[in-house]
């Protein structure tokens, strides 16, 4: 009885209120989001949760390859202690590759945006062209290019620079891995930087000159800051996949001393009996590490203009 009275009392003011005007509108965005959310749930969130669960499994000591559900944080301890050098290499190689890609990409993007004129289209095609061939094939081609008898070694040999390379060679060293990573992710650096430079109003850059900044100062205080959104996007698009990459280290590196986290995840997963939980723990650790680094990086350099 009292409940009924309560409901009536609550209902009266509600009907007195003006009806929410476009009531049909408010759920439309959610409806539009639904397919994407479902997709993410089924193909991203669920596998991720599954992966996290696996990363905490324990195995039966007497039956390698058989696991039981558990909350075994020791997998993470092992992942981070046994494979610490691999984490280090992943970060170092990806960092170096990002740096070299930036150094190569910025002048290229700059030339495309401001100097190329009618060559712009052709340069764009050349930047994108490698994507027409498979990633693996291109990396195998780099084996030939960097091989001991290959053209790069030959040139360095004649410049008396080859002896400065680790072990006096390029292939099967960290140099080859970093070179491969740089090459493979270069377009991901070029394109965002180019997009942000191309969007920049040339009058704004001229205004720098008009206001007493010489060419270099204008670049440093106007052009470069204006292209920062592109630089940040480019470094993220290079660093993140490079840090998780294993193909370059596999095909261009040596069996010892140049393996990255990706390689251990791959071998734990496919080749080591009973390696599943460790592979999962490694994957999760790598993801957390990259997320943390990206977060700090964007906090430090990113602005609301990003993307």
């Amino acid at each position, binding site marked *: 009885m009292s409940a009924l009275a309560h409901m009536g009392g609550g209902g009266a003011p509600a009907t007195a209120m003006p009806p929410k005007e476009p009531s049909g509108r408010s759920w439309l965005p959610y409806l539009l989001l639904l397919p994407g959310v479902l997709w993410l749930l089924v193909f991203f969130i669920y596998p991720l949760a599954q992966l996290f669960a696996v990363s905490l499994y324990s195995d039966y000591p007497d039956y390698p390859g058989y696991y039981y559900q558990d909350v075994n944080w020791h997998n993470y301890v092992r992942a981070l202690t046994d494979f610490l050098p691999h984490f280090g290499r992943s970060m170092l190689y990806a960092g170096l590759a990002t740096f070299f890609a930036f150094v190569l990409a910025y002048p290229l993007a700059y030339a495309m945006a401001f100097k190329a004129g009618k060559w712009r289209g052709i340069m764009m095609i050349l930047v994108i062209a490698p994507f027409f061939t498979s990633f693996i094939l291109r990396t195998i081609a780099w084996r030939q290019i960097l091989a001991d008898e290959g053209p790069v070694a030959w040139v360095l040999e004649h410049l008396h620079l080859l002896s400065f390379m680790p072990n006096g060679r390029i292939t099967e060293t960290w140099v080859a891995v970093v070179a491969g990573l740089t090459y493979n992710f270069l377009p991901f650096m070029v394109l965002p930087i180019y997009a942000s430079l191309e969007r920049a*109003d040339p*009058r*704004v850059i*001229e*205004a*720098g*000159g*008009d*206001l*007493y*900044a*010489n060419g270099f*100062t*204008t670049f440093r*205080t*106007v052009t470069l*800051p*204006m292209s*920062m959104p592109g630089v940040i996007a480019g470094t993220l698009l290079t660093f993140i996949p490079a840090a998780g990459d294993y193909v370059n280290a596999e095909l261009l590196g040596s069996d010892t001393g140049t393996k990255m986290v990706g390689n251990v995840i791959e071998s734990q997963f496919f080749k080591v009996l009973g390696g599943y939980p460790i592979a999962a723990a490694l994957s999760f650790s790598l993801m957390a590490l990259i997320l943390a680094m990206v977060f700090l990086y964007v906090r430090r350099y990113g*602005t609301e*203009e990003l993307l």
Partner: protein
Amino acid sequence: MARNGRSVSGFREAKGDLRLENVTKAFADFTAVDDLSLVVPRGSFFALLGPSGCGKTTTLRMVAGLDQPTAGRILVGETDLTGSRPYERPVNTVFQSYALFPHLTIRDNVAFGPKRRGEANAASLAEDALALVQMTHLGGRKPAQLSGGQQQRVAVARALVNRPEVLLLDEPLGALDLKLRRQMQVELKRIQTEVGLTFIHVTHDQEEAMTMADTVAVMNRGRIEQMGPPVQMYDLPKTAFVANFVGQSNLGQGHITGRDADFLIADVQGSTVRIPARRSSVESGAVTFGVRPEKVSVKRTRPEGTGNDVRGTVLDVSFIGVATQYLVRLPSGTVWSAYEQNLDLEPMDLRPGDEVWLTWNPGHAFGVGPDPDAVQAAEAAKVGAGE
């Protein structure tokens, strides 16, 4: 950083009149500025008027050093600036498109120039300049967070703060509402006279040019058609284009038939009119006759003995408060306009279709070279406005 044997500061310290000597700018297949010569005395206000695409921005860009002339020289005082870099010149620009630095706050935008010149008090200079354009309260924002008019004011402050020898303003007030525009005009004029800067002011607003400038130049197709003090430009245009562009004109195509003392006699589409000889750019042959609308009176009956009148039919009457504008179609088909101040106690009460006589004091007439295009354009402007 020596260039032509002079240091950067050599250029930057240049003082004196701005001189353009036979300056030409040719793009691939198009001459945007054609053999332009002019002198802008130091500390004067020079307004550049002209239709879209006539080469105003290109001229400013060459003075700023953003484009190099294909031929000719640009000097400030005795210093030849031709070939020097924008940052070496004592010149600042208010860009037509504002060109504010998107990544810097308003305050930093304005302080940019003073900082580059190594001013110790760049920040306080910027504050003063912002106060001048009433933008202090938005100093912390980024340009994208401002309205068009606000951005424009920041662009003015950013150039003005440097107190350059020559300030180039490319339609700097175009995006402002009338009240703010008048306010800024007064401010700019005050700064210009107080500090003694040379201003080159590009505008589409001929009233702005007339009220602010010491010298007005009308540019057309890369050339200066005429320049001089505003009063002179209005009173005695030298070409039909100028007659049209600076204020309105009643024009008629005709030819000179003779001379009577100080007057030229011309036949304009069947009417005989007189032009003071010293007010005509041509002495004989084809001529474009002109008289300003406010110099023309409208009468119901033919006035006696003036000898400067034409008959016509009223096309349109528009009351605009201080005056009434009449559009009258002449027998030749030409449409003229006339302004009558509303001084009569009993208004004439003319209606479209009425027959009237237009008359004027021959001393106000002027003659310019024949230019059928300009006559047509004058007509189109009037009829367009009347409908």
